[in-house]
């Protein structure tokens, strides 16, 4: 089971975990990204996330499918937020359940690492004195 969500609404961690829970599973690994107050020593006011929505959903599903192929995991939820996020809010949440924990850890880490490389979502950091699209320039 794969559950992909791209939403402007706050993500719900309990819901996300419930989606992957199963009596066949012994462990769930959950990664929760949170907006940091600082980046390279500079105070962040807020973040703005934008997505190429249809492709982002497709790429998130692809990554979850790859994880399913690579590791014996049971259920995967990948939830990403768009729009304006304040410090401490959650842009991304990944939950993976498996019979044994190693697979859950490996798959969850693979998903967040790959998501950050391939999913067409962009983050703008807004500071007191300007703003920058993260990773855009060398």
């Amino acid at each position, binding site marked *: 089971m794969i559950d992909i969500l791209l939403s402007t609404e706050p993500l719900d961690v309990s819901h996300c975990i419930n989606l992957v829970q199963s009596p066949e599973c012994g462990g769930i690994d959950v990664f929760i990204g949170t907006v940091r107050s600082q980046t390279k020593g500079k105070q962040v006011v807020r973040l703005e*996330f*934008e997505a190429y929505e*249809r492709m982002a959903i497709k790429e998130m599903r692809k990554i979850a499918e790859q994880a399913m192929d690579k590791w014996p995991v049971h259920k995967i939820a990948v939830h*990403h937020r768009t729009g304006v996020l304040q410090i401490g809010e959650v842009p991304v949440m990944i939950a993976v359940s498996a019979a044994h924990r190693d697979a859950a850890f490996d798959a969850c880490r693979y998903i967040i690492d790959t998501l950050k*490389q*391939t*999913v*067409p979502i*962009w983050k703008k950091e807004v500071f007191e004195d300007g703003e920058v699209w993260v*990773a855009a320039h060398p």
Partner: protein
Amino acid sequence: MEITVLAFGIAKDIFGRESVQISLGKNTDIASLKEILEEQYPKLKELASYMIAVNDEYAHADIVINTGDEIAIIPPVSGG
């Protein structure tokens, strides 16, 4: 043919809008499209990198663009 190129993130700032119309000759591939775009929008060359997506999929340089394809500029992603 006329195609629409969607822009996201910093590409939207470079274009000054969410999409641009471009005239392409027949059998234009992704590599040629990038050259055309970079000529019109030289700031694209300052990016760390960028990809082109055709119909929601990352497209290799030699993919040929057809009428009706959905084309998008994908600057370096930074989700998560």
